[in-house]
């Protein structure tokens, strides 16, 4: 019975392989189990714990879903949550040493702090853009010599003026009624100290930048996360009591904080206190005397998500948007299904 539970709920980490990686809890696989989908049971067992949350990063646990659904959320966070990014660069003057296309590529990757939910997607054949789907920024920098610099100065910051083009110099030009819509939050790049190009006296940049709404699938510049990933909760069980010097060696095999040594009747006994901290290096399985005492695995339905935002939207907003996008996909498919059924009935 215990073995069955193990197969159903744990991924086993063996010395040279992994076992039970596939979820097998489908109806009909196990005679005594009712594995049919049950929304009530799912809601009872599902929970979310937030470990830490800041403006840019978030770590939370999602327990009770299958890998297919958790992976769907991760994929959507990376590639299908929309953001605004610079798409078209109108180059009126570029006498810098950076080529036009290289400059345009770099500008596209700069994260722009504008809430994409307030904008529409651009229509397929529209080249001009409307105030509802476009943000216009301007970058106009001219590098000059500094007349007040001393004769033998060598530091470029002293002898030249405006030789570094930073995102701080990008100005927002409101189109249409954007000035009233965004009165409180100006539209600007997330960081104002990103170095875009370097100039020397006489060189100048005169660019108009148009931002549109897009998704990461189209181009990675539209991805709202620095990265989004998950790992499964490690599961360490000691099959035999580990005492004395063996306990100390066992403690060294795992990441610090996973195993603690307790004094029981004068003997040092090893105890698993915090399997969460482990990075699953399987070091214990490399030692012949330790590998019989420990069983390593992962809990199959416990996902520890880590979402790092680029700064455009806070990470909790990103996760809610990702879930909404999966819902929208299902709903769109359902309406398509209804359409095809109506057509076949005709």
């Amino acid at each position, binding site marked *: 019975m215990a073995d069955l539970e193990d197969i159903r709920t744990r991924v086993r980490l063996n010395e040279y392989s992994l076992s039970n990686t596939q979820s097998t809890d489908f109806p009909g696989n196990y005679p005594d189990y009712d594995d*049919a989908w049950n929304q009530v049971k799912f809601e009872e067992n599902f929970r979310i714990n937030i470990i830490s949350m800041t403006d840019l990063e978030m770590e939370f646990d999602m327990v009770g879903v299958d890998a297919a659904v958790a992976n769907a959320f991760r994929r959507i966070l990376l590639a299908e949550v929309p953001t605004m990014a610079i798409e078209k660069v109108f180059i009126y003057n570029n006498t810098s040493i950076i080529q036009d296309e290289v400059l345009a590529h770099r500008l596209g990757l700069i994260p722009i702090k504008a809430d994409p939910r307030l904008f529409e997607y651009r229509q397929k054949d529209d080249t001009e853009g409307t105030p509802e789907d476009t943000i216009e920024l301007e970058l106009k920098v001219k590098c000059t010599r500094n007349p007040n610099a001393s004769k033998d100065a060598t530091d470029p910051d002293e002898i030249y003026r405006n030789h570094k083009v930073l995102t701080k110099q990008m100005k927002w030009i409101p189109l249409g009624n954007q000035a009233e819509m965004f009165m409180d939050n100006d539209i600007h790049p997330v960081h104002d100290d990103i170095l875009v190009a370097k100039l020397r006296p006489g060189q100048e940049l005169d660019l108009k930048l148009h931002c549109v709404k897009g998704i990461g699938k189209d181009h990675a510049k539209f991805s709202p996360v620095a990265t989004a990933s998950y790992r499964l909760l490690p599961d360490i069980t000691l099959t035999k009591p580990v005492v004395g010097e063996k306990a100390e060696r066992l403690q060294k095999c795992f990441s610090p904080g996973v195993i603690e040594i307790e004094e029981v009747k004068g003997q040092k006994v090893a105890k698993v206190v915090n399997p969460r901290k482990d990075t699953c290096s399987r070091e214990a399985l490399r030692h012949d005397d330790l590998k019989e005492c420990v069983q390593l695995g992962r809990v199959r339905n416990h996902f520890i998500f880590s979402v790092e935002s680029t700064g455009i939207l806070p990470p909790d907003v990103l996760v809610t948007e990702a879930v909404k996008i999966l819902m929208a996909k299902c709903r769109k498919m359902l309406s398509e299904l209804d359409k095809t059924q109506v057509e076949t009935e005709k």
Partner: protein
Amino acid sequence: MEVGRLEVVEPENPEDETCRTFVMHNEDHTLGNSLRYIIMKNPEVQFCGYSVPHPSESKINLRIQTNGPPAVDVLRRGLVELTAVCEHVLTTFETTVNNFKRIQGSGEPMDTI
């Protein structure tokens, strides 16, 4: 931004409603794998699998074989159940985030659930 279109592959035996192959355009493993999982949890389903015929084309083939109910109904039920899962995840997440922010704001120690 054309989101999924649905096509049904012409079945060899149109009277038999229990087996169908669906082609979903502009979809990939994101919807494919999660939908396959939910549909497999249906006890009436004999077979459910999806594939991406070619990685350069953005479409998936989803095949459903049941032992009774029409395949279209099973697909519809799968989509409805997946939507319900997402809704529950969304409400649970939002509640948890609001609680966390409230507790953080007032400076009380976090209780571990």
